[in-house]
């Protein structure tokens, strides 16, 4: 059994949560966040959680325990973002390309995802957390898909913090899916009314964007990749036009509050530039 799990095998329980919100480290963290909030805070932070396997290898842990540590790190990040006032968090949990991995590792990750769904269901009641799953959910097992959909429905009205978990996701699949949905929509319009306006049968950019998996949340302000790599690996390529791309050398399970503080400070340092770029790109899009 991994050292990250308690005696009953649970990843986390109320004691761990209680420790997060109390004690002098919590007070220090809140003071740091008060100072940070004097400047602009990103609305949406996205994370590529890279380095779980390297972490497990370095610590000589059982195979798969790196992913447990990664799940814990994501939970801590949610708490930090909630305290800092970041409204949207998106995590790249599992790519379509990851299905090529060892079947045992894939199964371990799917089991962890199922456990995370139940954990998030409990957390959403306490912190008014909305959970959204973005990706081709048809590639997941029926049980996991059903649990994910139920969690999305149950948390649809929550609004304190929105967590989007990208599972079975790649941006190229997202674009293809959006185009397929747009084609079906336009074909229905054409079928309903043959005398319809010609432009109704033309797919516009707004049609594609409304069918994106990530259409429920705004574009990210920051994409953080841990593990020292400098590529997006097919994650949010469409949504990251005016996004600060941050690469952190630390592996994901070791990502902590100070790394988040550094990333937010970096974002604040360049905020004026990004605000100007967003306006410029909106103007380009309009005309």
């Amino acid at each position, binding site marked *: 059994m991994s050292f990250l799990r308690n005696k009953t095998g649970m990843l986390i329980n109320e004691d761990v949560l209680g420790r997060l919100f109390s004690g002098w480290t919590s007070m220090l963290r809140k003071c740091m966040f008060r100072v940070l909030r*004097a400047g602009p805070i990103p609305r949406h932070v996205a994370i590529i959680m890279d380095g779980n396997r390297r972490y497990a290898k370095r610590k000589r842990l059982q195979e798969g325990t790196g992913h447990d540590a990664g799940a814990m790190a994501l939970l801590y990040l949610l708490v930090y973002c909630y305290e800092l006032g970041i409204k949207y968090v998106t995590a790249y949990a599992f790519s379509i390309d990851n299905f090529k991995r060892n079947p045992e590792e894939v199964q371990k990750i799917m089991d962890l995802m199922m456990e995370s769904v139940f954990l998030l269901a409990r957390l959403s009641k306490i912190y008014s957390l909305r959970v959204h799953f973005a990706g081709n959910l048809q590639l997941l097992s029926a049980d996991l898909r059903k649990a994910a959909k139920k969690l999305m429905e149950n948390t649809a009205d929550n609004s304190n913090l929105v967590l989007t978990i990208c599972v079975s996701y790649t941006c190229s699949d997202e674009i293809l899916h959006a185009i397929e949905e747009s*084609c079906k929509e336009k*074909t229905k319009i054409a079928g309903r009314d043959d005398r319809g306006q010609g432009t109704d049968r033309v797919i516009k950019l707004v049609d594609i964007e409304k069918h994106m998996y990530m259409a429920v949340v705004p574009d990210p302000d920051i994409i953080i990749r841990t593990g020292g790599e400098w590529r997006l690996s097919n994650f949010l390529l469409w949504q990251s036009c*005016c996004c600060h791309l941050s690469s952190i050398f630390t592996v994901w399970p070791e990502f902590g509050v100070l790394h988040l503080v550094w990333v937010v400070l970096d974002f604040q*340092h360049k905020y004026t530039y990004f605000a100007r770029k967003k306006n410029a*790109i909106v103007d380009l899009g309009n005309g």
Partner: protein
Amino acid sequence: MKSLTPPLLRCLCLNRSMDFIRPKRMLYFWIDKIRNVLLRLSWHLVHSIINLCYFTTGMVHALESHLISRGLLRKYKSLHISKIRYLAIVIESEDACRTSNVIELLQWLAALGIKHVSLYDNEGLLKKSKDIILEKFDGAVLFQDTHENNVLLDQPRMTLEFVSFYDGKEAVARAANVLLMKYIKSGGIGSNQGEQIFTESQMSEALKTVGSGGPEPDLLLIYGPARCHLGFPAWRMRYTEIQHMGPLTCMTYGSLIKAIYRFTTVRQNYGK
């Protein structure tokens, strides 16, 4: 003495409590103000330290870049340039009019042996200046979509491609309409069975049809104040290494060598 009626008594008590509340409110108001000022000052202090850190790392990078340019650092002397089949450069639009800097950068790349370069700026200023760039930099030909990848690699001269925001999301919308025509002609097969209707290769073909096809770069260099790809076509950036080089006005040969060297040491798993 007139006895105090309840309303009058209530009024007197209210006045007394208001006399007590008003200074209390003023006190809280001023405490809040002072706290906000102190927080703001702390924020500015932290950012001053950040600026100092950036300045120091900038100096270190400038020194390293100078040493690399002089050939004094051994590890950068041999580069496996063949790993870069296709290089993309994103330039901040405010710097895109600096054609002399762009040409100098292209000359460095040509000297290193890079055969295919894509130049991107989101407003399309480089596209508008392409004739000037091609005229002044006579070591290149314009990339045409009809080139196959293997023909591209055999070109003796550098092929240059000019890309803008128009080749990104707008091109995907135009390609979507090409796919829509195919979908309508096929009678909407697969729509009700939940199957995937289009494949990635069909999408790539559709993008070529609308004039925005092109290979996926191995390495993307961003010349601008921040690490941001500014809308480079999403379809072509899936596994591309992205490196931030700083503003175009501060470009150095040494930093270019360092970026290429770093790329050649990277190992990708592609999800495995």
